[in-house]
């Protein structure tokens, strides 16, 4: 095993990159859970859709356009889903909502196959993102730096909105006790809608960002679903802090597991998940209520 410090910096960046990608996905899912108390299993499908839309738009108008259009398109679909299914299911209990979104996974997977075919697709990034950046004397792919930066910006923006703005205060009130919040005159229904749509947009953004480094295939949503669920369950459902902690834990365990104990790499994260749930049955940062 090399002892070169640059090697460990590189691996740390790799871990951060994976963490930030997962953070973009899990934060929407966890805040939706915190407010509405249900897990949208189709969140991974929205991510896949984001990747497909980004690929199509990028082919027509360039990568930048793809990254902008994908979250908007997915958010629009999210709005439609909200009015057609989610809102109607609000009183049906969390289990029913989970199952509806589970059914949606299968529908979404076949719909992407009908539109985009079975063969995996790929897109390229603009030349300025294609190279490597010199980072403290270490070369690291520019695109991976972009993912890290984008994740950090999203994190900062969300923290700011949630802690410093009125909307954020309303959302926090809703997470703590939605009935009380409604009594205080907060339009809970509208808040649910906004949070759901923003969560969908973030999933679409994650898909667009991941598209150039992964194969865009109909089952990419299913493949990312389990890692995302692990992240939010380790962190504790419904909490922003939990999503950050969960993403970082997942990214670092996966990366350093692959480096230090490759033969255990695929079991390590599940063992950790089981251990967390035994010791803290509601995750590391559970929300109250």
């Amino acid at each position, binding site marked *: 095993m*090399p002892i*070169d410090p640059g*090697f460990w910096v*590189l*691996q740390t960046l*790799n*871990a951060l*990159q*994976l963490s930030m*990608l997962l953070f973009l996905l899990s934060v929407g899912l966890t805040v939706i859970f915190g407010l509405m108390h249900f897990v949208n299993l189709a969140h991974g499908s929205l991510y896949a859709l984001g990747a497909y839309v980004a690929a199509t738009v990028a082919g027509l108008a360039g990568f930048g356009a793809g990254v902008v259009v994908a979250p908007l398109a997915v958010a629009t679909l999210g709005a439609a889903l909200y009015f057609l299914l989610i809102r109607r299911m609000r009183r049906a209990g969390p289990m029913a909502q989970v199952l509806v979104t589970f059914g949606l996974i299968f529908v979404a997977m076949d719909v992407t*196959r009908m539109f985009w*075919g*079975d*063969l*995996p*697709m*790929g*897109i*390229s990034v603009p030349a300025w993102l*294609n*190279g*490597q950046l010199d980072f403290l004397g270490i*070369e690291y*792919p520019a*695109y*991976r730096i972009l993912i890290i930066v984008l994740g950090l910006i999203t994190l900062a923006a969300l923290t700011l909105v949630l802690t410093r703005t009125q909307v954020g205060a309303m959302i926090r009130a809703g997470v703590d006790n939605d009935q009380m919040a409604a009594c205080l005159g907060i339009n809970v229904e509208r808040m649910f809608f906004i949070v759901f749509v923003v969560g969908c947009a973030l999933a679409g953004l994650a898909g667009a960002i991941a598209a*150039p*480094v*992964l*194969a*865009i*295939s*109909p*089952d*990419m949503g299913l*493949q*990312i679903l389990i*890692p995302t669920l692990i992240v939010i369950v380790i962190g504790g459902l419904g909490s922003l802090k939990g999503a950050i902690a969960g993403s970082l834990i997942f990214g670092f365990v*996966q*990366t*350093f597991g*692959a*480096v230090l104990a*490759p*033969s255990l*790499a*695929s079991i390590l994260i599940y063992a950790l998940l089981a251990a967390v749930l035994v010791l803290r049955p509601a995750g590391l940062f559970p929300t109250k209520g």
Partner: protein
Amino acid sequence: MKFTIGAAFAALAATTCMTTSAAMAETIKVGLLVPYSGVYAAMGKEIEDAFMLGLETYGKEVPGVTFDVIREDDEMKPQVGLAKTKKLILQDEIDVLTGIVSSGVTGAIRDTVHAAQVPMVISTSGNDEATGAQCSPYITRIGFSNQQVNRPLGTWLAEQGVKKVYTLAPDYAAGKQMTQAFVDAFKAAGGEVVASEYTPFQKTQDFGPYITNAKASGADAVYAFYAGGEAISFVKQYESFGAKAELPIYGPGFLTSQLYLEAEGAAAEGIVSALHYVPTIDTPENKAFVEAFKAKSGHLPSEFALQGYDAARAIIEAAKTGATDRASLAAALPKVAFTGPRGALTIDPATNNLIQPIYVYEIVKGENGATTQKVIATLPASADPANGCVMAAN
């Protein structure tokens, strides 16, 4: 009058001939077992298109024999493949079984096919065992074997002056078979393998940690086997690290298969790999095949297509000897030999494995900007070792 009698005789003779060929004019029932559902559907479609093209092209050579193709979807799942195989054998009473993409399905159905004495033409799966320890007089390989592609490349790479190699492959049977065959040949030719890493199969989103490891390992080159979606992710992520100049990638050609080349884009440029078929092989047989396939399905044929095409050809070559039922086809199939789009093919009687040339090719930018395969070396055909195959008397 004499003339009339003569004519009548001629007519009679003709009728007799007709009856003789009518006795031959039988239907060969072919079971085509490929994946049609989920993300593998594209592969099934590719094989089927090419298989039907093969029947159309060479079917004329056996007038009077018609082919009844029964398609089944194995979903790439061994259990499903086995159930469908039993259905094809017991209910549809097929004469010959072909297709079979997944090595798992091959392993699952081997005993059933052997016990039922149904000839099977493996067109795609590279499972070494099927013509190794698990070989059977009823199983003939017409696609490739995992070691067949990797072994010559190991020797060739050492000859090119590459000394130290870092290998990467997904952690499953094919990944291990491919890597092992390469490592053995490369070491025998004087090369050194710095490390062999296996990544969790279809669970690895980020190859960054492994690529960083490879760069730090002090190797001259990376030898990688990935297929499908994983190949695309790996090739693109490797490119983003900008490591190809100092640490070039070699590997079996599934890494840059025609099916995935477009999705990989420019990231695949410069990768040198080896395979038994690429659509740019410069022979009249291949040009004819590529034209016909493009006319039928609108894109260049991949190795999956070629294998389906040759499977159809092999069955027809067997039928040419007069074989039409299970027993006669099983006897005739291991003896077929022909020159197809990928060159001259023969079957090794010791294992019923295919003997075929291997092409080393580099991915380069083509005329219209898209990437294409440039063949840089043709490695002569050599038979795989028997690998524990003891062929029972046929």
